């Protein structure tokens, strides 16, 4: 076991984690705040990547490219939102439908090509996995961390506004929210748009980081997103009660997820088993709060019995 190799791999895992952490923050908005399981993300991640790849290879400023990716991502969220609210399709199905449609849309965006290279030697990109071991501002970790902080700050401010609170109320108790005069359908659409915009943004960053966009790059994104949300909650949840803290937990969760993956690779396990291991890791993190809860109720129950006696 070459421990130095693992340490050397960690910066790469960290920056991949930070980029996926932004995506997971998007997932957090739908899954935790809105209480909607949104499967659009598998498609909107690739949409963001596709938009960024096309624009950057056309020589567009990468900052503008990621902004466009964000906006197009919001449109994908709008589609899911309309499927759900205007057409009455259950949220999970609405997301799956959009995800399906996006496969074709993404192919169209990339002009029928399934895969598009974004050559770091040729184009100006914001982040590249090539610089991940460089000690300078070029290092992708710096910029992605900074963007994560800005993202969290903006979301914190937004969810503090009246409308942001309406969104949270919609997720917390829909009937109550409606009774307060909140248009819950619209709130859900806005939430889905925001979430998918962030996911597409992260897809755009990922495309630059890994050097290519591919119609299949979002495959399994929701699993990684949910894993990050849950790992973050399990590991750090009790230290943070405020919204910004919780969003930070999500980002850290994604980093932990990639650390675990990197360790699994480092251990030299057969990569054919990688997906099974991923599933196991997520399952364990999902089970921990449940087991904790069980232990808690059992203890509480025992306490009651003693009182009765």
């Amino acid at each position, binding site marked *: 076991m070459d421990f130095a190799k693992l340490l050397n791999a960690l910066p790469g895992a960290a920056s991949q984690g930070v980029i996926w952490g932004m995506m997971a923050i998007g997932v957090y908005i739908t899954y935790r705040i809105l209480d909607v399981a949104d499967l659009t993300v598998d498609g909107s991640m690739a949409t963001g990547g596709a938009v960024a790849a096309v624009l950057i290879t056309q020589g567009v400023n990468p900052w503008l490219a990621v902004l466009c990716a964000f906006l197009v991502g919001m449109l994908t969220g709008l589609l899911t939102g309309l499927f759900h609210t205007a057409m009455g399709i259950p949220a999970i199905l609405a997301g799956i439908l959009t995800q399906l449609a996006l496969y074709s849309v993404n192919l169209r965006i990339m002009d*029928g090509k399934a895969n598009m290279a*974004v050559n*770091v*030697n040729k184009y100006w990109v914001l982040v590249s996995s090539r610089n991940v071991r460089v000690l300078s501002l070029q*290092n992708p*970790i710096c910029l992605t*961390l900074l963007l994560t902080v800005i993202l969290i700050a903006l979301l914190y401010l937004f969810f503090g506004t009246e409308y942001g609170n309406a969104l949270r109320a919609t997720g917390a108790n829909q009937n109550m929210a409606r009774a307060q005069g909140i248009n819950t359908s619209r709130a859900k659409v806005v939430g889905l748009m925001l979430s998918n915009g962030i996911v597409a943004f992260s897809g755009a960053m990922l495309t630059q980081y890994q050097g*290519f966009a591919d119609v299949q790059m979002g495959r399994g994104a929701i699993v990684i997103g949910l894993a990050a949300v849950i790992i973050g909650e399990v590991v750090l949840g009790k230290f943070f009660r405020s919204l910004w803290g919780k969003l930070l937990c999500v980002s850290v969760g994604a980093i932990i997820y990639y650390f675990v993956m990197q360790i699994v690779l480092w251990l030299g396990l057969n990569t054919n088993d990688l997906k099974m291991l991923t599933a196991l890791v997520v399952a364990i993190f999902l089970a921990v709060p449940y087991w904790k809860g069980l232990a808690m109720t059992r203890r509480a129950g025992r306490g009651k019995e003693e009182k009765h006696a």
Partner: protein
Amino acid sequence: MKRIASLLLALCLCLSCVAVAGAEGKTYQVGVLQLVQHVALDAATQGFQDALKEALGDSVNIEVKNASGEFNNCTTIANDFVAGNVDLIMANATPALQASVGATGDIPILGTSITDYGTALDIADWTGTTGINVSGTADLAPLDGQAEILNELFPDAKTVGLIYCSAEANSLYQVRTIAGYLNELGYETKEYAFADSNDVASVTESACECDVLYIPTDNTAATYTETIANVVIPAGKPVIAGEEGICVGCGVATLTISYYDLGYATGKMAVKVLTEGADISTMPVEYAPQFTKKYNAANCEALNIQVPEDYVAIE
């Protein structure tokens, strides 16, 4: 938080320098990054390993890692190789190559099973060498030759259905190219693209309206040959395949390159890079050394097709 991160980063750098110094001059570390498990790619990896082992014996340590079809894993695995400071990376299939190129500009990378390096690396004026730390072997099948064997076996057919996976850029390239050759030979061609395992059967079903079907060297199609066979054989439609693996599963005949040989050729290039210090940026990309006309005896019998004598039966 940031200070801890930068400290950690610095620590990593120091330790990696130590690690490199320690490993110098003993065995070569080679990382193989393969996109997905299937016959052709597996054969290429095998050929690569055999060539390296033959030339270098125990003085090479090959680590094979498979991304199991998940593109994101390619980046993670490439990062793992770069972190381990391997002497050479062999990237099997296009996304594996792109992820490796994204991860390092210094470590030599050899690709294999790449159809077109110009497209994969976004090099506009492709001349045969990359000019960067990349070379390798291309699996571009002889498409004009494949159009010819289709013509040889089915001279009376009118329409040819071209089946491929819309998620694969290399397949689209091949389909468009061979359509040109087939049109010249007087066939009418039609594209049938499927997205994934779920619509392979139904897309193939609709393609059966054509007289003959053609499938290029498509990684996804190669994975689902059984599904395709279950549709085309009962429908009585012959499939000309882009490579042997697909032909074994659902085809009748192919003009194929051997992925094993291709991997083997890549292995020889690796030996040159590792031991002779060859400059990878000026090494021209190599193509398959020879093509063989092959046929699938069982499927030909089932569809009542006679093949000329110069075709070799696939074992």
